């Protein structure tokens, strides 16, 4: 295990060195790609400043709000479409169209209709996050085999109980994947909205820094955003791992 960590640190060192080299050689202008040193310095300054943490808070607020609503809507609807084939068929085309719709393209329209408000940001996050959650819940419910349904039928298990103790637990692994994807998406979309509008948050700070000529600070914000997203991924993977220990180790592929 330690050897792996060493390798990973080595890879990180290699990337940082490469970055420093490219920046030093001046292949690209210093504003396009500031060196790791200046970015690190900017990052250090940021971490001490209240402005930074406020921006982080704004970004997270929009992300979490939209995410929670997406979960509240996506899971039930997904489970229903997963269990009832008729529902799935009816909704398939609509979901397919809406899903492939670039949410951020809705921004101009949303700006018109809802104005530049935190509510608008949360709404956009909601729309972006609801589909992964919905679809994963659907797949999870579909994973309940016909054999299990038949068994439940033959023991005449009432509908609600079936949902609660057969379908829902069976769908949990898939739902967890959906939650993980939606969580990372929520932060990305939140920042995306901030870049395109004047709403406060990390995205807005990136714009401001860049327009003010401070590339290093902009990069520092970008990296911080990446760190937050990465942290969320790690957390989610950890949660999945702990909660899903009952799953037999799956033999990948081949099938």
């Amino acid at each position: 295990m330690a050897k792996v960590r060493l390798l990973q640190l080595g890879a990180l060192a290699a990337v940082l060195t490469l970055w420093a080299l490219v920046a030093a050689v001046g292949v690209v202008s210093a504003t396009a790609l500031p060196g790791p040193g200046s970015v690190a310095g900017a990052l250090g300054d940021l971490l001490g400043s209240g402005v930074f943490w406020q921006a982080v808070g704004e970004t997270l607020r929009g992300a979490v709000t939209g995410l929670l609503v997406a979960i509240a809507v996506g899971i039930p609807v997904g489970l229903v479409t997963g269990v009832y084939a008729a529902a799935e068929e009816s909704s398939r085309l609509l979901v397919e169209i809406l899903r492939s719709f670039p949410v951020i393209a809705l921004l101009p329209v949303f700006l018109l209709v809802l104005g530049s408000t935190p509510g608008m940001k949360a709404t956009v996050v909601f729309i972006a996050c609801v589909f992964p959650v919905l679809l994963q819940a659907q797949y999870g419910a579909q994973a309940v085999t016909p054999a299990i349904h038949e068994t439940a039928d033959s023991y005449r298990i009432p509908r609600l109980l079936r949902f609660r103790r057969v379908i829902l637990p069976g769908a949990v692994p898939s739902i967890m994947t959906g939650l993980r994807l939606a969580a990372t998406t929520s932060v990305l979309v939140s920042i995306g909205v901030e870049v395109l509008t004047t709403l406060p948050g990390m995205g807005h700070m990136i714009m401001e820094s860049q327009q003010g000529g401070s590339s290093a600070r902009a990069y520092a914000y970008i990296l911080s955003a990446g760190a937050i997203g990465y942290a969320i991924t790690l957390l989610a993977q950890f949660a999945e791992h702990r909660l899903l220990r009952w799953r037999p180790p799956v033999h990948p592929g081949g099938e």
Partner: protein
Amino acid sequence: MPWKAILRQLWLPALVFVVLLTATAGSTSFYFPPLTEVLTTLWEELAHGGLVEDLLFSLRNILLGLALATVVGVGAGLVIGEIRTLRLATAPLLDFARATPTVGFVPVIILTLGIGSGPKVFLIFLGSVWPILLNTVSGVQAIGPAVHETARGYRIPWPLRLRRVILPGALPQILAGIRVALSIAVVLMVVSEIYGSPVGLGNFILQSGSSFHVAETWAGTILIGVLGYGLSVLLLLVEHRVLGWYHQRAPRVRSTRPVPAEHTDSTESAKSNGVVV
């Protein structure tokens, strides 16, 4: 022709469309013009207003960016997937890159590299390459050990192995990655045109929006939706042709692909699930 199946799938969307049509028909609301008006505006702009130019410009950028991302992502992904030490060493870095909002780079790139096509293509590439790369790595890993052993036992030389064993084997996951990359690419296509790009679909809606040309904004948004949907249908067709063998195997319970025990993913399952940046 399975008429009943088609009907079952179409009734709801058709209903929604009709409802929208009628509900907005007599609308005097400023922000929600009648659907008919939006559609006529769309038609007008396409026929006379140079919207086609915008469309082609954006389309060209996104296709170029995606093509680049596919070549680099698959190439690097195959190498990383095959070499265990490399894969283990770079895993956290790749996950971190995947989690970084490429949208954040837009100000930096555009303000320093200009508003031409090049920086836009680069941005699209930058955002799309990660899902493709990560899914390629995951796809290589997903190839069953029996397949690898057979190739080893019959002493298949590695160029042939790469071409006819590893690449086809990883293809389902690769295509899933491309599908995800597509949604990211469409978003970046729009966002990259934020700073007064002379042409472009994203620019069109952003301008229309800020000048309060409501019908145009809705029209442009619909067009982008159609573009995104059209590209994903195209990808689906490619998938069906190339992955005929994959889809026709013994029918399994429709479930998500099992999570490989070792590398728990930032990769999306072989069935796409609508992740958008």
